[in-house]
């Protein structure tokens, strides 16, 4: 927790900048026209980049908002930027107008009052969001409170090449398989988002009762709770690709490894990623996905607006468009992104619903029933400590 504590210590007393007022949507739309919105979003996935470019075309067409995708290698860069700007007194027109965010980065920014809002629940399309059925009001156990707007649902799945292996049922069987087939599995190097997700998924699956993870980690329980994870990793690491001496930098980098036949199994946070990658020739068409018997971690992806954005209206228009049935249906199209929708199908008109119903699932995408139960994200404090410890144990060589 030292990161968060420090940020909190640095934070100036809460500055409430409720301008522009999100509830006056006409005024927001009027102000948004002609604004340029710098959306800082992770740029490592070319399918996502294409989707963002499409969003840019659409909001320019309908609302006169110019959307610029600032491609990040790490979302934390954007957080740093906003922090630095506040230190420098740039409170009016910072470099960033919108961030693709969730989890610890959101928690840090919210706690430090670096976010504009609340705005999400005032957006017109919030009405069609499935705010009851989907975890869009908490983000890694942290209450969202309208400071970020959801735009996609994600759930952990494992991509595997059916030409070389069978689906696995839990983390223990993955370990057994990896031991029997050394060098055929790896995961992105933490602190990469997906890498830490693998560690969390492993811990959740290894614990008999994962509910302890919903509360903040303490010095008392941390070592004991995470012990099974370190035992698991100590056994797994020597069986990994390159014996764990190198890791792919990010999730998409795993796709190339599967395509080359270097590994057979990889983690993904997007049930539709495998299908989209097969369509883009990035994966062989023998790849399918599976989930663990006890379910896998799920969460939502959000967009947030920094407190010092000079184009908050434009950013809200983009956030609202992302929650529109049009954008959601496109994001769910397995040939485009294959992201899960945040919308409530019952709240949509028949026409709007039809756009979703006609979507094919895709060859490698599991149906909602097959995806099974969603496990909750642990409190961010667990991830921060586990990522730090992972770096100590496996990240600096032996």
């Amino acid at each position, binding site marked *: 927790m030292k990161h968060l504590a420090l940020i909190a210590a640095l934070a100036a007393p809460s500055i409430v900048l409720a301008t522009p007022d999100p509830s006056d949507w006409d005024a927001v739309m009027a102000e948004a026209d002609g604004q340029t919105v710098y959306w800082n979003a992770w740029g490592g996935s*070319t399918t996502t980049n294409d989707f963002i470019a499409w969003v840019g075309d659409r909001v320019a067409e309908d609302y006169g908002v110019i959307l610029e995708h600032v491609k990040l290698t790490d979302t934390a860069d954007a957080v740093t*930027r906003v922090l630095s700007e506040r230190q420098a007194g740039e409170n009016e027109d910072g470099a960033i107008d919108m961030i693709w965010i969730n989890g610890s980065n959101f928690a840090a920014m919210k706690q430090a009052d670096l976010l504009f809002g609340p705005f999400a629940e005032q957006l017109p399309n919030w009405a069609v969001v499935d705010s009851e059925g989907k975890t869009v009001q908490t983000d890694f156990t942290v209450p969202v409170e309208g400071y970020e707007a959801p735009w996609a649902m994600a759930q952990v799945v494992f991509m595997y090449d059916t030409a070389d292996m069978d689906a696995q049922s839990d983390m223990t069987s993955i370990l057994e398989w990896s031991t029997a087939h050394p060098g055929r599995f790896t995961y992105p190097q933490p602190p990469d988002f997906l890498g830490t997700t693998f560690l969390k998924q492993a811990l959740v699956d290894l614990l008999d009762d994962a509910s302890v993870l919903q509360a903040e980690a303490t010095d008392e329980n941390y070592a004991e709770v995470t012990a099974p994870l370190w035992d698991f990793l100590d056994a797994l690491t020597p069986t990994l690709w390159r014996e764990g001496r190198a*890791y792919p930098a990010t999730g998409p*980098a795993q796709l190339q*490894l599967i395509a080359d*036949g270097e590994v057979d199994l990889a983690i993904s946070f997007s049930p539709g990623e495998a299908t989209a990658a097969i369509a883009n020739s990035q994966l062989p068409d023998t790849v399918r996905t599976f989930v663990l018997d006890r379910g896998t971690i799920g969460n939502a992806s959000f967009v947030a607006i920094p407190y010092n954005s000079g184009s908050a209206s434009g950013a809200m228009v983009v956030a609202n468009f992302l929650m529109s049935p049009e954008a959601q249906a496109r994001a769910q199209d397995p040939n485009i992104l294959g992201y899960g929708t945040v919308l409530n199908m019952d709240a949509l008109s028949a026409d709007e619903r039809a756009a979703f119903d006609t979507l094919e699932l895709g060859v490698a995408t599991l149906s909602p029933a097959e995806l099974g139960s969603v496990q909750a994200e642990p409190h961010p404090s667990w991830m921060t400590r586990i990522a730090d410890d992972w770096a100590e144990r496996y990240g600096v060589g032996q």
Partner: protein
Amino acid sequence: MLRFLPALTLFAMLGPVAAGLWGTVLPAFGHLPAAGLTGPSLDPFRTLLDWAGLASASRLSLSTGLIATSVSLAIVILFVAGWSGTRTFRLLERLLSPLLSVPHAAAAFGLAFLIAPSGWIARLVSPTLTGWDRPPDLLILQDPLGLALIAGLVVKEVPFLLLMTIAALGQAQPRRSLMVAQSLGYGRVTGWLKTVFPRVYDQIRLPVYVVLAYSMSVVDVAMILGPSTPPTLSVQIVKWMGDPDLSMRLTGAAAALLQLALVIFALAFWWGGERAIAWLGRIWIETGHRGQKEAPIRVISLGLGSVSSLAVLLGIAGLAVWSVAGFWSFPNSLPDAITLKNWDRHGPAAFQTFGETFIVAGIAVGLALILVLGCLEAEHRSGRPLSRRGIWLLYLPLLVPQTAFLPGLQTLLLNIGADIGRAPVIFAHLVFVLPYVFLSLGDPWRSWDTRNATVAGALGTTPWGVFWRVRLPMLTRPILTATAVGIAVSVGQYLATLIIGGGRVATLTTEAVALASGGDRRAIGVYGLMQTFAALVPFALALTIPTLLWRNRRGMHE
């Protein structure tokens, strides 16, 4: 006005370096008032020492720098000793010259596509020779010893040092010395090493230092080819500097000072090595060893030189093939399908970035040309040529590791509320573009026959008239070459664009390196190829424009 240009140029070049170092020193000693921290304190260094990867990262920085520099220099020197003046030499020289402008990142991608266990080489020999139907689980890229990183640096530094050596040879009159040595019974290589090398090395010493400092602190190549558990010190510095926890910036700043100290140490070590080799060389000369059986050395040096240039050329070919590849399974040597889909997907954005890249490069190089031409003209009119100390100052921005001053510069810019975006990026690029433009233009400018100016003056032409109507047109070719060099330098800038641009300025290099983490070889192929074009096209223009412009002026092509 003209009198102030040299000072202004020095300021443009060294001002950001000095300011950036200052912006690094303060937080390194715990002083970052913006974050509510005031120093002095040694805590940042304590945190740094506590980092478990420190020893490995520092060792990597030293070993990659020293090994890459020694190997590059050895290949170049042995090749020049064994082959200069031959047709083979000219052939390889022609092959290597364009490689100079290939951006480091593009070359690194190409090499990665080539030597990875799933790379082109493995594909070509599999499964027939190796029996591999899947890529072997070998740690070839990202290896903890940094061997892939060293290879990536060597293939780029060999062309640089070779061209520097060839430039130095022009002044050393090697042919006569070699003839005398050979008539005394010395072998070609031994004779060259004993008679020509000492003079040549004196000329290329500073470029060698630049290679050493660069190799130790490079970020983009290390992110592509270097290890990650832990990464090199410079990559780790960039990570710390980007951490949301501001206190990690202090650690990063402390590490940046360590990086600077390591570079200074390595330069001193190298300097000591020069002395030792000079001493040993004198003993060797006194022995009168004539050098027999030099054929193996010549063959090996030719082999290494060829492999190093072929690696880059094949690598770029690999980028091209991946950019049009459909699914491409191992161990097929060519894609299972060829498609233009990748260009459809990434081409438009890449072309847009191409535009941004050229706006930044164009303005930076334009400013550099004004300053450099102004300095050279001032030098001409005052009759005082650049002193040896002046040349050191020119090289200084290239000797200070980028990671030591660019993050500090960013902090300073933020603190004074400077607008982010293109303008600061252009000035940051100028720091690196200026020395190269100066070095590239200086010699041809000075070797221009000043009697032309006397004649033009005697004909009643003012000094500025001489400058615009006589000197600039006569020097069209070197000026265009210097422009191309400047553009190539700007196109290749990674850290200066990333850190100073705050993400808002995307060039082909930053986009390509950002894609590296995603591992999408098709997208990397498109961007890497565009990046290579962006650097090569200006060189092609620098060759063809004068040919077209002066097609009826034979005297301009001598």
